[in-house]
């Protein structure tokens, strides 16, 4: 059953196997700016090694820009290439900005008269197709960072279970009352990076108390290779102790090893990172539990991904 539902999830996401190896990443041109007259230009893609555009462009329709004063900015000049999308963000206010995607949805499977059905909008067109659930971000939204989140690939090749398109509903509200074997997972994910103009600010790091959250102890635009950094992770506002976090430095093809660090948070949910070198890092973690916010779901899968720039001392 678990295996089956996994396959269904994969089918919903429209991934091509081995999907687990493709990571979604943002690569900003810079993260520290002297003034408020500049822009950052950002690449976004999915590939095995972070920041190397060689697999798929990220769908950046859902990119959001959180300005330090709490207002929302706008991505400018969006474009999609074969291997990476790009956009600019005008950094016109002082403080620390948050730029990226958040994805909340419910996906899973159920049966009607023994026939397999699933929940979750199919990836790709038609955007804004009718139905009350179509506007809600679903499992078919933009890819989040972690394993299992891949590119907006074409539908899976043969050999895997295919679901009759008429057996897909967009939201949990459309599950028929006679459905059986309901197995739903709530997904919550973030993939983001930070930019600071002038002095940093912490206004955007106030935890909401919902899901998996990243709360910096060391500000993410203050990272230096000879100083260890600390970040706290929370689940529903409580310390996420023992959380496994993966860190991959960019530039993998210029090294023998991929340089992945697999770290674990301490009892207070604090992760301590020692940087082997300066550069861009891709941080990723995910956590599955059985405390979904939606009572119809039985599981909750949360993921967090960030791109961090570490400067030389």
């Amino acid at each position, binding site marked *: 059953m678990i295996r089956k539902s996994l396959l269904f999830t994969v089918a919903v996401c429209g991934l091509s196997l081995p999907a687990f190896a493709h990571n979604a990443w943002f690569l900003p041109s810079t993260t*520290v*700016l*002297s*003034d408020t*007259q*500049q822009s950052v230009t950002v690449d976004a893609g999915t590939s095995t090694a972070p920041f190397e555009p060689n697999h798929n462009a990220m769908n950046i329709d859902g990119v959001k820009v959180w300005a330090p004063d709490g207002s929302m900015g706008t991505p400018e000049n969006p474009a999609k290439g074969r291997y990476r999308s790009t956009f600019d963000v005008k950094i016109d206010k002082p403080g620390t900005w948050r730029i990226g995607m958040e994805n909340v949805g419910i996906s899973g499977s159920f049966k009607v008269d023994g026939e397999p059905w699933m929940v979750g909008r199919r990836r790709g067109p038609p955007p804004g197709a009718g139905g009350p659930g179509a506007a809600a971000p679903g499992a078919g939204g933009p890819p989040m960072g972690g394993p299992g989140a891949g590119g907006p690939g074409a539908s899976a090749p043969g050999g895997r279970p295919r679901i009759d398109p008429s057996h897909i509903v967009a939201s949990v509200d459309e599950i028929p009352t006679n459905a059986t074997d309901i197995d739903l997972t709530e997904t919550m994910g973030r993939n983001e990076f930070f930019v600071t103009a*002038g*002095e*940093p600010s912490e206004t955007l790091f106030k935890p909401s108390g919902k899901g998996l959250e990243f709360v910096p102890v060391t500000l993410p635009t*203050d990272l*230096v290779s000879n100083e260890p950094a600390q970040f706290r992770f929370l689940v529903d506002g409580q310390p996420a102790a023992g959380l496994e976090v993966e860190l991959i430095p960019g530039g993998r093809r210029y090294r023998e090893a991929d340089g992945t660090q697999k770290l674990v948070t301490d009892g207070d949910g604090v992760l301590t990172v020692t940087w082997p070198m300066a550069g861009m890092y891709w941080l990723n973690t995910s956590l599955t539990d059985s405390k979904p916010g939606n009572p119809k779901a039985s599981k909750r899968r949360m993921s967090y991904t960030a791109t961090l720039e570490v*400067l*030389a*001392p």
Partner: protein
Amino acid sequence: MKKTIAIAVSMAATPAIAGTVTVTIPRINVAEYHMPYVAVWIEPKAGGPARTLALWYDVDKRGAEPGTKWLADLRTWWRKGGRSLNLPADGVSGATRAPGAHRIAIPASVKPGSYTLFVEAAREDGGRELVSLPLDIPTRAAAKASGKTELGAVSLSPR
């Protein structure tokens, strides 16, 4: 009379500084040379905010790419406190300097204690270097350090 005034002035002037830093900008033979951005600052050894003593950058450049745009390239200074400075800052900021030795006064208002003196230089089309030197206020002895690429000798004298 004139002499006594001169003496009075020199006596009053002497304690107005806590020491002098001399920063040497090396001559670099490249086809396209730009004078470096340089920041000189001190940090209390026991921790505490940095105090910028001098900042040389393209003060007058305006437009879409003002001279301040590249201040973050002095990346250590920027993080240690440069970013909280309102520029231009009186007695601190000034134009970029040509190769040669330049003297910077350590203000008498620097409280006695143990500090580290930092000099950071970043050059367009060039490199970036950070040189540091222990500094005790009041300064008693001369001290010296040297950069290898973007900075030459950095020296400290009590006067």
